[in-house]
């Protein structure tokens, strides 16, 4: 078992995953920045300093070497950066650019768990009746029906499609229980995007995403990003709904052991409903990710 690291504490083992170091990662929410102010955060065991200049531009550098400037981009209401030279561009989500959507950064929450455990929980429907009781699910309607999983050969993203689940209160816009259609997309080892039926428009999907900043192999800060078709509810109501949901997940995640995700399929006992998790774990193995996982022997 790996030693635990307090939030913000540096863990040298964390920075050694070359695959993770070449990825863009979320650092801080834009709305948490103030012009002229400096802040710092740990990414993959490396402490970074960030500054928003008077003109609104953001810069990021290593705390231990201010000449080592890291690349920066703003996307999804978040500042993203990378420890090495980015091996790939940050994934795109066209829905987030649609002008008629409500764009909400719903919160940033620290969780004592690995990023892959948090992603896998986000991909999981079977826990809705037990963890999100009377909101995203309710006993006795517990069945996870057969759904489809594939890895898109062009983008190398994991997709789960044709997912349906009965939900009492699927969203802030819900007035009654409904069979909700879900599509899940994993475009990044520590990020996951959900496309969900909206009561507002049958032909379009609400977009709800979880972007994790890996601090240490067993510590993350999770950003919740939403692009919704919801003209009525206030940002505060939308945030409250998402924080309620995530607040229910957090104690489950923090009681999960081991905190790093085991990639050997024999270590935990999966079932058919875990099909997307099985694919996700194999995909992480193929990518060669080592941070936040226990690699298969």
């Amino acid at each position, binding site marked *: 078992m790996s030693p635990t690291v307090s939030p913000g504490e540096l863990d040298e083992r964390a920075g050694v995953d070359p695959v993770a170091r070449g990825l863009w990662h979320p650092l801080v929410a834009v709305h948490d920045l103030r012009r002229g102010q400096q802040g710092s955060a740990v990414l993959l065991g490396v402490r970074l300093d960030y500054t928003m200049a008077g003109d609104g531009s953001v810069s990021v550098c290593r705390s231990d070497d201010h000449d080592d400037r890291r690349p920066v981009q703003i996307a999804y209401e978040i500042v993203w950066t990378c420890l090495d030279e980015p091996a790939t561009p940050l994934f795109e989500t066209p829905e987030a650019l649609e002008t008629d959507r409500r764009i909400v950064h719903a919160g940033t929450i620290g969780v004592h768990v690995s990023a892959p455990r948090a992603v896998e929980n986000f991909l999981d429907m079977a826990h809705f009746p037990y963890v999100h009781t009377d909101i995203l699910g309710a006993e*006795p309607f517990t*069945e996870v029906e057969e759904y489809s999983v594939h890895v898109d050969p062009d983008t190398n993203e994991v997709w789960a499609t044709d997912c349906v689940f009965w939900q009492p209160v699927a969203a802030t816009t819900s007035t009654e229980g409904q069979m909700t259609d879900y599509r899940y997309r994993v475009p990044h080892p520590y990020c996951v995007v959900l496309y969900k039926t909206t009561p507002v428009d049958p032909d379009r999907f609400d977009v709800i995403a979880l972007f994790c900043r890996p601090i240490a192999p067993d510590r993350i800060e999770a950003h919740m990003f939403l692009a919704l078709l919801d003209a009525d509810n206030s940002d505060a109501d939308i945030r409250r709904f998402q924080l309620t949901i995530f607040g229910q997940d957090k104690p489950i995640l923090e009681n999960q*052991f*081991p905190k790093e995700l085991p990639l050997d*399929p024999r270590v*935990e006992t999966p079932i*058919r409903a875990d099909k997307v998790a*099985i694919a996700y774990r194999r995909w992480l193995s193929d990518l060669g990710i080592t941070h936040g996982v226990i690699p298969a022997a």
Partner: protein
Amino acid sequence: MTVGGWQPIAALDDLAPRHVFQASLDGQELAVWRADSGELNAWENRCLHRGVRLSIGFNNGAELLCRYHGWRYATGTAGCTYIPAHPADAPARTITNRTYPIVERYGLVWSGREVDGRPEEVAELGAHTLVLRALPVWAPRSFVLDALVDHRFAPNEGLDVDPAEVEMTCDRRQGSIVLTAAHGGSSSTVVYWVQSLDAHTSVIRPVLAETPDDVIAVLRHHARALRELVDRVERTVPSRSVEPQGPLETPVVVERSAGSGPHIEVRVRRKWWTAPDVAAFELTPLAGVLPTPQPGSHIDLRLPNGLVRQYSLTNGPGESDHYRIGVKLEVDGGGGSTLLHDVVTEGDVLTISGPRNGFPLRRDTEHTVLIAGGIGLTPLLAMAQAIRLDRRGFELHVFVRGEDALAFPDVVESFGADATVHVALSPAQTAGRIADVLVAARASHPGALVYACGPAPMLDVVRATAAAAGWADPAVHFEYFSNHHEIDDSTPFEVALARSGTTLEVPAGTSLLEVLRGAGVALPSSCEKGACGTCAVPVIDGTPDHHDVYLRDAERAANTTMLSCVSRARSDRLVLDL
């Protein structure tokens, strides 16, 4: 780090009803709980599905439910009885959490690794002991035991005496320190055990030999005295670790003793006539623990004359130390029931298979209709008890030939108004009554499910009537009398093992995994539902018929590997690299 031997892990009072207590022993976190029957459980504190602590789960009195996905594990065996994400599937028997030995003695609950018998006898402790307040210490167990040797307290009858005046005697035993305090003709004895939480932390668990008159004053005295000892120990312990340990993890669950082979030896603990032509048997294992029964499961019973008969288990949740079956006398039934009725007696040893579940109970409904004909009642009794524990609605209808023909009348009566016994109806009257039941239930509970077990003509009536009353086909479930299962419609195939040069037949209804194991091939397996990939076998020739969810599309198309637990063959013959 392993200390070995029995150690106390909790006071019996810590195990409140319907509660789960988190304990720790030598670095291993345990979920400790008591069933309503009084049965104690100490399990590895990790659901084997996704690793969530079981101590944050729910104790329903007979099962522990994981908080994350509601998986249920039975008291005693820790075997999984239900996976809510797949209500129609019976969980594989391999899905069993790791259990630890647990016993109660002297008001404490004890566990240990590789222990047997009971915790050591302590002659000083009689019938009137008092469990004193336990205190955690930030020091290793051996260090705490050494410090306890010099511990001082006053006797019950002289709590105000200056501790320096008290004469202390110490007897250091295998795992305990026995201290006696004497002053002015009165004396008191306390036995101290030390539980090792992990390599750095311990809990002192004292038990007073005689319950005093003034319990509160004595408890307070010992709590204060022990607090001072603990403070001193924590000041002097050489290396103080600041990191508490998380739970140890032991991956890959192994099936437990009594259920590991195809045959289990059981003894007839009790035999009685539950109706004039129905003998009931309670069967207990000669060794080990019986595999976990599920509602609807049955066993094969191998009779002394070589016959094999299937009988449904009537066990309710929490009844894990025995199997209970009901055997109806079938005069022209081939001799199986005659032998059981006339020859087999209490104390006899029989051989059974582990339970198999071809009639699993879905629990994703608010209401269940159970229809039994005669001895077809047996699997439905198990179901009704399980539904009752969940506090969901059900109605049990039992059709019997005569007033006294009802088997297990005590269990049926315990269902009160939820059970109706229909006596001595003609076939036409029976059909009419079944129609009434199904029409009424369909109207009042549109999402209900139907389970029926009994003679074939009656089940044909249920099938036709249900369809006419508008029940969807998947909502109505059948088990034919004496467990004549609907045979798996997949076709048999031949499998050749290239390395050993043997050829095996995989019959319909039997998995490739079972056939390979039967032929002595040691093949690991875990979920047995085609999800984990553990039982994959390499294919050299032939076309597998893949039924798993583990393999990628490309791997499936390549046909070079298959999961032996669920996948079969499209070709007549497969050649495996085994």
